[in-house]
């Protein structure tokens, strides 16, 4: 069982990395690129008792991890997806 946590910057927070990627794509000749945002995708392998729990409980646990550590709620959002 795996969980994927996608952490992205909140709307309105400037993303210098995304902007730089956009500029670089333009200068490589890819003209038709609008806004670019860069986020993180953290893949967690779930084991033991946690993996055996019902999905909603697993999801709750992973959300807890995201809020406590994986995302900075001042500037970031996150979403959780369970795989396999």
């Amino acid at each position, binding site marked *: 069982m795996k969980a994927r946590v996608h952490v992205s910057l909140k709307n309105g*927070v*400037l993303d*210098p*990395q995304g902007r*730089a990627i956009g500029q670089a794509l333009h200068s490589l000749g890819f003209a038709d690129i609008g806004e670019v945002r860069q986020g*993180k995708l953290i893949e967690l392998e779930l084991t033991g008792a946690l993996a055996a729990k019902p999905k909603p409980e697993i999801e709750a646990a992973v959300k807890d991890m995201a809020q*406590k*550590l*994986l995302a*900075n709620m*001042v*500037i970031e959002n996150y979403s959780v997806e369970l795989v396999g």
Partner: protein
Amino acid sequence: MKAALITFPGSNRERDMRMALTKANGGKAPLDVWHGDSELPKDIDLIVLPGGFSYGDYLRCGAMAANSPIMREVKKRADSGTRVLAVCNGFQIACEAGLLPGALMTNAGLQFICREVNLRIETTASEFTRKYRKGQTIRVPVAHHDGNYTLDADSVKKLEDEDRIAFRYADPLGTVAPETNLNGSVSNIAGIYNAKKTVLGLMPHPENATDPVCGGMDGYGLFESIAESLA
């Protein structure tokens, strides 16, 4: 003054900080505290979170250190009024831990920057900067990759209204302008206080400007101010 200097795995400016604190404190070195410790010595007046790359700056600068056992204790002490000085990675940790508002993002230029900058002293109504003059500029170095201070406009206004902005990136004459904004920080902010002005967080390294031979003395006033205030 009795200071505690906290070392996290990956801290690397704790030594620089120790030299500066010891010098300003009449030769008395701070107590070293390891991040895994869950308690701080009782009669501490100052807690210092030094610079470096705690946990390699992996995930987000300061995020993992903010969750280490000692930080629960640091927050408790800070709540009860113990002074906290948080520099560079320490500032990032303090923001992540909620001791200070805002977040530190990647420098707008996306590069690590190590150079001397001019800081304007925005307020001297603080135990950390009373030896300086308001509006004075000092030259101290920065050395960071993620010093782009980010905070929403209303909160910035609140910091201003409450005289909680400690330093701004400026030119040598103290002019604060977009061109003097080193790293994209909102309103050129280089350092801020908490509401009670007992916690100071800043990106630059005043501890690297406390010796005439290595970096000059412009940062020394900060340590003198603290030592005098907490004497």
